[in-house]
């Protein structure tokens, strides 16, 4: 019984690892499958740090 549980837990671990690997490579594979770049706006323009310019303005001191 213990052996079965051990084998099942090992399988659980392996499949969990393979699931995360699939999601990691998903971005790069999408454009290959669709034939064009799906989210081109986000890939060209990164608005993530747009507010940094204002944040670095310490003229108020």
């Amino acid at each position, binding site marked *: 019984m213990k052996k079965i549980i051990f084998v099942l*837990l090992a*399988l659980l671990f392996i*499949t969990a690892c393979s*699931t995360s690997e*699939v999601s990691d490579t998903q971005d790069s594979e999408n454009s*290959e499958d669709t034939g064009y770049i799906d989210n081109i706006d986000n890939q*060209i323009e990164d608005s993530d740090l747009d507010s940094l*310019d204002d944040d*670095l303005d310490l003229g108020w001191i």
Partner: protein
Amino acid sequence: MKKLFIFVVLFLMVFSTFAIADNDDRNNGREDDINLELRDKGDVEDNGIIDDSGDVKDNLIVRKRMTSRLQEAREKLSEAKEKYMKVKERYAEKIKNLEKVKEKYGECQNSDTEDCKLRIKDTKTYAKEHLINSADLIIEKLNELKTKTESSEDLTEEEANEMIATLDEKISEIEEAKSTLESLNEDSSKEEIKEAANTIKTAWNKINLHMYKIRVRNVGAMMNNLITKAEIYGDRIELKASELNSDELNSLLSDYNSQVENARQKYEMAKEKWQAATTPQEIDDARKEVNQYLKEANESLKQSREKLREMISMLKQNDSEISLDIEEVQE
């Protein structure tokens, strides 16, 4: 009975993860009803990419970079993303506090009370911390882009090396600016703090434009490979179309080729613009046009894909087909 219950629970857990993995794989962009599938490698002969002389046509091959460094970078990419997100979260928390500090500092500007003197000193310490956090955030953003560039298959080794060198240079610049912040303390003058903030801000504005160019070059490399693949499909359909002699198929093929040609033209126009832009000012000036050309090229690729679906359906109706496998040479 208890053992049986444990066994059933574990069995369900294991098989539920199998189902998740399988589902992710199936949903991995494979939504096309005609199942357009690009495999990493294929049998050269089966792919129909051998010309009459028996040689592999060079233009029918999409070159892909595959080095040990690339493999290593792919593994590090999620780590770099995670690290950046953590630094960003910490930064977002601190910036909320900065707003409160700024408000209280304003109230103390015309007051000589001991409490206000202390508050002004605290504000300077807080400003220093904020500037260091900002520098760390920029460094992690650069590191994330560096890992993304290292893990790109679409760039050539030379392009990747050049872009990585630029990113390393920018990381050094911001680290140097960060080191000047270390000398700031609660006794530093307002001017010293403002100057330090200005140094980081100026560096960031320039770096941001270099980062944009690197993102564009990554997107461009990906697009170039997609256009090359679209051109290969066009050549293969043309061969089949000459056998079938269908006006409808020929008309679709003509539209398809026009779309792919347009994508190629717009891509080349964008490339010419971004290659010519080297200084931050030139990059900023070219930005609007580069974005426009790349978006137009992408739209043409999208429309050509629709035509490709229609042509493949038509070929199937006529008991014909083309191979969608593309030989990808790993450099």
